[in-house]
């Protein structure tokens, strides 16, 4: 943050005008209180106020560096006190020295200068206090603005990721191919056609429900994924094999809605669609105190040339987990031999709280 006074030309003008008014008032006061000549009173007022106006600009820097967050703690109060003593003492010392140097043979005035020391000290302390207050108001306003901006950005990101999730759920390729299969089954095997329509409807209904709740039980999510895989299995038959190992603890755990769907779609798209041999998609979930380890793996045709494009689905998953848990280390991807493996870690509620207490701070870094 730059010095709020020097930051804009407008601020400098306002600052100068304020000091001219203060200097004018002080000169008037001196004239009314004493019988010194006019030019002496004006000189006195100008020297002291110009000096302080310059000092006040520099006070910004110790404030900013000792206290970038604009907070008030004991340590910071001590710092302010020390800065205050230095500034006010320096101000008075310089003021007295300069005035005694430029105004010669003004004994009556010097007497007044000495008599008014306490008043000047009080003025200096008042000035210092007001300066601190103004600077703090500035910092506060700036922080507020930044916070607002941050919140808007976050909301935008959430909306965007929701849109992406929606788009990936209604995967048109999957939808139209399934409808094509159903179109054949209506004549050749009506019972299976009906079964497939019901499964497809249930799957779509679940997808549309997303957004109502942010999180869901893993067991529920898995049953939806099984629907999806059963539909694909009607299309691809024995080419698609699904295995799962989910502990009881895991099944009850809460995970973000539809977070696994893109991963299974990837496994089908890059495994089953691209292979002529059977592909096994395997899901393993282990529950722990801190959270759930979920692993989704699939083998793939070793001859298959990587067709990039898996990136979008994975990126969405990563973004959503980042938004919800405030951590970007929850997804790990591994490719070894002819096995593709995605590992997720879903933190449990308590460990989440601690992590997300101060999400703004994280954003700033």
């Amino acid at each position, binding site marked *: 943050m730059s010095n709020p006074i020097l930051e804009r030309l407008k601020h400098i003008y306002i600052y100068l005008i304020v000091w001219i008014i203060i200097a004018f008032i002080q000169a008037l006061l001196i004239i009314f209180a004493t019988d010194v000549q006019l030019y002496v009173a004006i000189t006195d007022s100008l020297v002291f106020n110009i000096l302080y106006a310059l000092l006040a600009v520099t006070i910004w820097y110790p404030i900013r560096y000792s206290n970038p967050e604009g907070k008030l703690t004991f340590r910071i109060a001590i710092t302010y006190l020390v800065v205050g003593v230095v500034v006010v003492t320096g101000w008075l010392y310089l003021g007295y020295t300069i005035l005694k140097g430029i105004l010669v043979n003004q004994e009556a005035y010097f007497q007044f200068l000495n008599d008014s020391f306490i008043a000047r000290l009080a003025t200096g302390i008042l000035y210092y206090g007001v300066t601190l207050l103004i600077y703090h108001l500035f910092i506060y306003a700036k922080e507020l603005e930044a916070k607002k901006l941050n919140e808007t950005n976050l909301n935008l990101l959430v909306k965007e990721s929701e849109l992406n999730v929606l788009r990936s759920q209604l995967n*048109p*390729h999957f*939808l*139209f*191919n399934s*409808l*094509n*299969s*159903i*179109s*054949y*089954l209506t*004549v*050749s095997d009506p019972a299976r056609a009906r079964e497939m329509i019901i499964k497809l409807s249930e799957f779509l209904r679940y997808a549309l429900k997303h957004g109502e709740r942010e999180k869901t039980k893993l067991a529920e999510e898995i049953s939806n994924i099984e629907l999806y895989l059963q539909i694909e299995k*009607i*299309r*691809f*038959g024995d080419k698609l094999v699904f295995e799962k190992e989910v502990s009881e603890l895991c099944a009850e755990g809460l995970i973000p809605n539809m977070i696994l769907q893109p991963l299974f779609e990837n496994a089908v798209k890059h495994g089953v*669609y*691209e*292979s*002529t041999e059977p592909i096994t998609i395997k899901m393993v979930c282990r529950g722990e105190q801190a959270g759930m380890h979920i692993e989704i793996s699939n083998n793939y*045709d070793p*001859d*298959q*040339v*990587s*067709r*990039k494009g898996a990136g979008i689905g994975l990126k969405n998953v990563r973004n959503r987990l980042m938004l919800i848990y405030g951590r970007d280390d929850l997804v790990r991807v591994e490719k070894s031999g002819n096995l593709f493996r995605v590992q997720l870690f879903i933190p449990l509620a308590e460990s989440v709280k601690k992590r997300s207490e101060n999400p703004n701070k994280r954003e700033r870094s």
Partner: protein
Amino acid sequence: MIKTVIVEDEKLARDLIRDYLDKHEDFQIIGEYEDGFSGLKAINELKPDLVFLDIQMPKLTGFEMLEVLEHHPVIIFTTAYDQYALKAFEHNALDYLLKPYSAERFDEALAKARERVKSGGDQKSISRMVEHRDQQKETIHRVVVKSRSKIHVIPVDRIVYLEAQDDYVMIYTPDSRHLKQKTMKFFEARLPEEDFVRIHRGYIVRISEIAQMQLYEKESYIVILKNGVKLPVSKTGLPRLKAKLDF
């Protein structure tokens, strides 16, 4: 009899075509294939008059098949959803079927195909389609080539460097080389930019394969690859190479 081949990876989708085709007695299905590779081989060997071709398939996509077909049948494309494919079909294909399609729509496409087979095939559509694909500047991940009767799929990850040879490009991998009928410009625009650099009118090199760069005579450079091959660097290639190597 119109000899027909179905290339489609889903059994139910193949069955549907078979079912719709059943009442048309002048068509005879001589083969069904579930991936692009076996489909391609069958088309070249069996020389069918008509092919139903899916776009998204294992091993080779429908588009990749077009590039290396030796026999040019009449093709009816079938696809569920693919924005790029639709664009390619719109002006270039004889006809295409969007899944799911009705029997009436199928018959319509079939009527067109019948006409075209009678009038002597459809060489033009295929080359127009390949041309259209060539204009799309999407990054490629594999190259399909044929040498004599064999088809090879070369993953881009295996390409060491490319050399211009008249109307062809010679593709060098660690253990083989293949001729492909495309231009250097084609590859320059489609190989992943972060991995390859065009160092000369006649050469595109994988950056990570470069072992060293040497001054050769005055002001002209050559690069030496890890496998010992020496390639010249041209005046326009030098700044490109320097930018990629960060020096």
